[in-house]
């Protein structure tokens, strides 16, 4: 196969520039294979984060030809012919080369009020399969933070970061909100401190999600509805939660949880 030219951003917090590497490639390789070959030959100090090489750990996020992608799941033969440009995620501070400091996300994670289940009823908690499956979509998240990277609310407005949870955490909030065994109310927090209102449903986050989570349709829009719902009428809110929990009788539920 013909050699490929990779244009890779090299540098650190103080600045940097692009460097070109012309390197061999083999059939079926992904961008991460090429980065590894550059490390093994020309630039052993080229920093990049990776772990599983299987699209499951969420470490190898970068911007390939300007688009957030997992380097390990981006096939070279899927990219247009010519030079391939690889840059670090723009929204997060640079550590070195392709490695960014994503700790903003961990700070946001700390602010999520945990699941608060009601006291254990006799015979243990019970959940309907449907409720399990609804949350399951959000649990596919591998925390690659590419949705956070692409969202213009923080990509273009650094100052918004303190006030904006971002799509990755909106799905976490949605999952908790939809959890039939949760009694916490996070609506005020979402509206006043976590910037749910800043999101104008551009769906850029959904487009880049490697797990194909319907971030906007299945999480953000339902969350927005809940936040405006019933003008924060706590009774209506509680009623909604309880209604959901007792909507079906056990006999109607198709699958019972394993003991």
């Amino acid at each position, binding site marked *: 196969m013909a050699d490929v030219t990779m244009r890779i951003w090299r540098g*650190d917090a103080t600045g940097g520039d692009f460097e070109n590497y012309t390197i061999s490639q083999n059939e*079926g390789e*992904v961008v991460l294979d090429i980065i590894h070959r550059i*490390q*093994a*030959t020309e630039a*052993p*100090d*080229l*920093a*990049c984060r990776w772990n599983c090489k*299987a*699209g*499951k750990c969420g470490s190898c996020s970068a911007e390939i030809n300007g688009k957030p992608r997992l380097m390990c*799941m981006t*096939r070279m033969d899927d990219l247009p012919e010519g030079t391939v440009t690889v840059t670090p995620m723009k929204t997060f501070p640079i*550590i*070195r*080369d392709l*490695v960014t400091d994503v700790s903003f996300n961990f700070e946001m994670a700390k602010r999520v009020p945990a699941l608060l289940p009601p006291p254990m009823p006799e015979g243990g908690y019970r959940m309907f399969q449907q409720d399990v499956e609804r949350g399951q979509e959000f649990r596919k998240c591998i925390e690659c933070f590419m949705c956070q990277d692409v969202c213009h609310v923080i990509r273009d407005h650094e100052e918004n970061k303190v006030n904006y949870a971002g799509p990755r955490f909106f799905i976490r909030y949605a999952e908790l909100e939809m959890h039939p065994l949760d009694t916490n109310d996070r609506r005020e927090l979402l509206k006043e401190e976590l910037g749910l209102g800043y999101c104008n449903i551009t769906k850029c986050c959904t487009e880049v999600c490697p797990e194909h989570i319907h971030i906007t349709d299945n999480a953000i829009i339902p969350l927005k509805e809940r936040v405006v719902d019933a003008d924060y009428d706590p009774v209506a809110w509680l009623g909604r939660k309880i209604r959901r929990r007792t909507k079906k009788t056990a006999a109607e539920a198709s699958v019972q949880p*394993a003991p």
Partner: protein
Amino acid sequence: MFNYVPEMFRAETAETEEEGDKWYDDHTAGRRPPELLPRDEVARAINTEVKAGRGSPHGGVFLDIASRRTPEYIRRRLPSMYHQFMELAGVDITRESMEIGPTCHYIMGGVQVIADSAATAVPGLFAAGEAAGGLHGANRLGGNSLSDLVVFGRRAGMGAAEYIEAGDVATSFNMEEAEAAVKGALDPLNREEGENPYTIQHDLQEMMQALVGIIRTGPELEEAKDKLDEFTERVKNISVKGARAYNPGWNLATDLPSMLTVSRSTALAASLRKESRGGHTREDYPNPDPEFAKFNFALSSDGGNWDSPISAAQSPLLPLPDELKALLEEAH
């Protein structure tokens, strides 16, 4: 014991204990297909097929689920596998078979610990998880690593806390040793000329795969031990460029000595274990030997450095605790 098998697996393997047992006597009976053998047997079978010239184009074998399950089932139950084959290989596993081959999955050996506290022979050092040895015997069962982490991770944490609270916290600190370690770590950065760590890592992987891989023989293990001595010398001559911040080449240079410690220990223990058991297969000793079931090989470094000679001692297996014995008897 059958009662503990989750519903989901029962539906696919056997509904009753009798049906499950029947399979062991007659592999055509029952629902459990023979591909669901323990990993070591599957790996050996693949290896045999490939060596006999019956391998797939890329040197593996074909695994087929498309003819056994519906596309909906495959997508629902094997979402990651479906996704990865589709995206990375352009193979639709709901319609065609996949090419597979055995790979290194787990290291059954590890640092010897006291099971209750996860304490090692080094005062103040605790080990849990894949780094610790002994828990999974000769062949770990699927799923058991994650339960190991939860149980023994907790014990290690409590063990460490107790150790500190007990107050006899170590330890003599030898400034000279610390300085030597720092110098050793920095040497590759300071060396003007030397070998690329990636080349050494690649060669080490190839050599270990070829000589200390799935099927082992005495002469090959001896050859590996000699080669490992050469690798030890090569590692002392690594040179990397760049600075200390997030420098993968330098990180690899500082990992390589540990990779050699593990490789040397594996090759030595494998050469001493003149039997086949679990994940360890010796072509020259194809059967398990009951004498070898009585002990582990406990290795130690005589000089304490990564390149010091390693010696092996037999460490007798502890008798089964009464409560575990009772559990096993209950199961039978």
